[in-house]
């Protein structure tokens, strides 16, 4: 049962994340859109969500990365890319339009499946379709770039 501690850690991390998003009310798209409405009815709360998350994680991360390896894995798998390419900007801009339109980013969307209604199922389905299509297209583009 060597997988058990590893999976238990992933489960607890998921629960903490979903619980934290709920406590912060990021699961309420009206609150999210008001956070983004700086020139109208502004609700600055979500800046404190990002601030709290960033503070805890920024303090913990350097200590964790001093370890030779994670507790239940062979090595740390951090994102390897460092260059600022077009994709990082274009992807961010497209994501922001969707986030601003509907008030849902991926974490709150999936956490909201805990009280799923038709609206939540609709946006999660659309999100998964968008992700699937884009992954397939990008995989083909990258394969073509390697073997012209």
């Amino acid at each position, binding site marked *: 049962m060597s997988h058990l501690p590893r*999976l238990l850690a992933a489960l607890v991390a998921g629960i903490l994340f979903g619980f934290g998003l709920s406590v912060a009310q990021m699961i309420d798209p009206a609150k999210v859109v008001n956070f983004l409405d700086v020139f109208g009815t502004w609700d600055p709360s979500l800046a404190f969500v990002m601030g709290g998350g960033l503070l805890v994680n920024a303090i913990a991360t350097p200590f964790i990365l001093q370890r030779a390896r994670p507790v239940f894995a062979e090595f740390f798998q951090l994102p390897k890319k460092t*260059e600022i390419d077009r994709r990082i900007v274009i992807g961010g801009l497209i994501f922001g339009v969707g986030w601003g339109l509907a008030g849902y980013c991926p974490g709150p969307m999936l956490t909201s499946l805990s009280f799923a209604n038709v609206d939540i199922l609709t946006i999660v389905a659309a999100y998964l379709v968008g992700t699937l299509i884009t992954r397939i297209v990008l995989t083909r583009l990258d394969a073509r770039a390697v073997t012209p």
Partner: protein
Amino acid sequence: MEIINFTPVPAFIGGALIGLSAALLLWAKGRVAGISGIAGGIILPVRGDLDWRIVFVVGLVLGGLLYQWIGLGAGVDHIRAVVDTPLLIIGGLLVGIGTTIGSGCTSGHGICGLARRSPRSLVATLSFMLSALVTVFIVRHVFGG
């Protein structure tokens, strides 16, 4: 500008829990707690790298259920979608497309990437914050939503 519904304390506590979750996943599994990355790896999985992703997403839902079960804070009864079905579909599609092209979302870039001082994540975060602000401005103040 008018400030409404400002709830800094639950926001900060919730944010700190999210930071703790990200730290736990890095410490235990050596992975970044980016939700779009974790979910994306379920949709088109790589062999041997699937089980923990499913378990994490199940945890997200359980975390939401736990919050409702304890009966904390504002609850979820007041929560409604802010747009009609067509815009929900467009919004969901754009979030899927954008986070896949841009390798991450609010959590992966905004919380994990910035905590590692990744310039790439900073550019990503500035990009999606900018376009989200502009989108809400256009929807609410140009078209008068």
